[in-house]
C-alpha cells in the first residue's frame, strides 16, 4: 500500500471537516469506536418526514475515518432513511476516491457502520441487515 491515499481532498476533509459537531434534538445518535486504533465516530441525524433534515458527526481518529464521516454526513442530507440504509461500502470508497488495504478499510467504514446502526435502531430494524462483513 502506497501513500497515494492522502489526497488533497482527504487532507482537506480531515483538517476542515464539514458538518462537525452535534445536533441536540437529533432523533438518531449513535457512537462507536474502532478499538484497534482508537478511532471514535459519533453520528447525529435529525429526521423530518422520513428524510434526513440535518446530519453531523464528531469524533477523533485518523484522516481516513474522519474524512469518510464528514463526506457521509454531506451525502445523506435530504435523503430518505431507506436510501441511507442502502448506502454501500462501495459508495463510501467512491466518495473517498482511493483504494484501501483491509486494515484501513475498517477506518473508512466505521462512520458508515455507526450511521447504519443508528438508522436501524431508529427504524426498529434488524441489525442483521448490516450486510457486509466489514460492517459487523
Amino acid at each position, binding site marked *: *500500500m502506497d*501513500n497515494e491515499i*492522502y489526497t488533497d481532498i482527504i487532507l482537506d476533509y480531515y483538517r476542515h471537516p464539514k458538518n462537525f459537531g452535534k445536533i441536540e434534538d437529533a432523533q438518531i445518535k449513535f457512537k462507536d469506536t474502532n478499538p484497534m486504533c482508537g478511532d471514535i465516530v459519533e453520528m447525529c441525524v435529525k429526521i423530518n418526514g422520513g428524510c434526513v433534515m440535518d446530519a453531523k458527526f464528531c469524533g477523533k*481518529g*485518523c484522516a481516513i475515518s474522519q474524512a469518510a464521516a464528514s463526506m457521509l454526513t454531506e451525502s445523506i442530507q435530504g435523503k430518505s432513511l431507506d436510501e441511507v440504509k442502502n448506502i454501500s461500502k462501495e459508495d463510501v470508497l467512491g466518495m473517498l476516491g482511493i483504494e484501501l488495504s483491509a486494515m*484501513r478499510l475498517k477506518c473508512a467504514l466505521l462512520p458508515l457502520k455507526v450511521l447504519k446502526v443508528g438508522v436501524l435502531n431508529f427504524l426498529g430494524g434488524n441489525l442483521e441487515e448490516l450486510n457486509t462483513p466489514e460492517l459487523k
Partner: protein
Amino acid sequence: MKTEFEVLNVEKIRRDFPILNQTVNGKPLVYLDSSATSQKPLCVIDVINNYYKTYNANVHRAAHRLATEATEAYEESRRKIANFIGAEQQEIIFVKNTTEAINLVFYSWALENLKAGDVVVTTIMEHHSNIVPWQQLQSKGVKLGIIDILTDGTLDLEQLKAVMSDKVKLIAVTHCSNVLGTINPVKEIAQLAHKYGALVLVDGAQSVPHMPIDVKDLDCDFFVFSGHKMLGPTGIGCLYGKEEILKKMKPFMFGGDMIKEVHLRETTFADLPNKFEAGTPDIAGAIGLGAAVDYLQNIGMKNIYAHEKELVRYAIERLSQVKDLKIVGPTDSNKRGGLVAFTLGDIHGHDLSQILDAEGIAVRAGHHCAMPLHERLGLASSTRASFYFYNTKEEVDKLVEALEKARTIFKL
C-alpha cells in the same frame, strides 16, 4: 575507564534472525515494534521444531522415554528462567502471558484476601492488563488509588508516599512503561509497600527482555512477564511469586496436573509450582522460552541494556530535530527503556504508521493498550518506535527520513 559492557556485533546478531532479512513494500524491513512482540532467533525456532519432531509427549504423566525427555526439557526451562531472574524454580509458574499472570494474582490472591475498605494502588501509566483486573475489585468495595505522572513523564513518587496507609494491600506497578518508556524505581516502591504491610506486583513485560533482573534484589512479591517479547514464542509467560505467598494462595484453575490425590468428593492440590498449572501446558512454548533465555544470557543483559540505551539516546537526539514532532515521556535516556513514542503535528498515529510502512518501517500506532495514559496526556493516539538489540542507528536514520516524508505528504 573500564566499561562494564561489550559493544554488540549487531551485524552478526541479525544473521540469527532470518525474518529481519526481507523487504517490505520494496524496502528493507526496519522492525521497530519489539515492544509489541520481539522477533525470534533461529535457535528458538529450531528448539520448538525439534521438540515436535523428536520428543513430543505430554509432561508429568507417563514413564515412557519421550515423556521423560519432554518433562525434563519443560522443567529445565523453568530452572533456566528462574535463574535468569534470580528466583527459585518452584516460584516460577508458567502461564500464557503477562495478562494471565496478573489475572492469576487477581483471582487467587486479591479476590480471596481483599475486603471492603482495602486499597489497591496502581498508576496512570499501566497497560490495561494492570488496571482492568484491579478495577473489578471496586464492586467488592475495594478502593483504587491511581498515581499520576509528573510533567517529565516519571511517576509522582511523592503522591505515592502520600496515599500509603495500612489500608493499602497491594501496589501494582509497571517496571517500564510501554508508552512513556519510563523505568520506575520498583525496588524503592517495594520498600515503601512493605513498610505498610502491602505487597507489590511488578509488570515486567517491558523490562525483563531489556535489562538484568533480580527479583530478590527488587524484593517484589509478584513479577509478571510474557515470553514473546523476549525472543520466545507467543502463548507462554511467567508469574514469579515469593514462595511463602504462593504457598498460601489457592489455585483458580482446577483440573488435571494440579492435584496430588483426587477422590470422588475431595482433592488434595499439588505442591508449587504445579498447583497453578492445571491441564496440559504449552510445553513447546516453555521449551522455546528456555532457549530464548539461553540466547539472551549468551549476549548478556548488561550489553543489551547498554546497546538500547545508546539507541534511545540517539533516537531522541535525532527525533528532536524533526519539526512538529513531540516526544512522549522523559527525554533523558537514563530514565528510559528501549522505546520512544511520539506525535507528529496533527497526523494521526494510524496514518503515520501507514506512511512509514510504505518505507518498510514497522511501528505501532494507537493507544498501545494504555487509554487512561493517553487521556491524561490529551492524545488520541501516539506512534511508537521500539528497539531491541538487533536494531541499529542506521534504522533510526531511516525512521527520521520517513518522518520527513510524512511531513511532506501531510503538508506540515
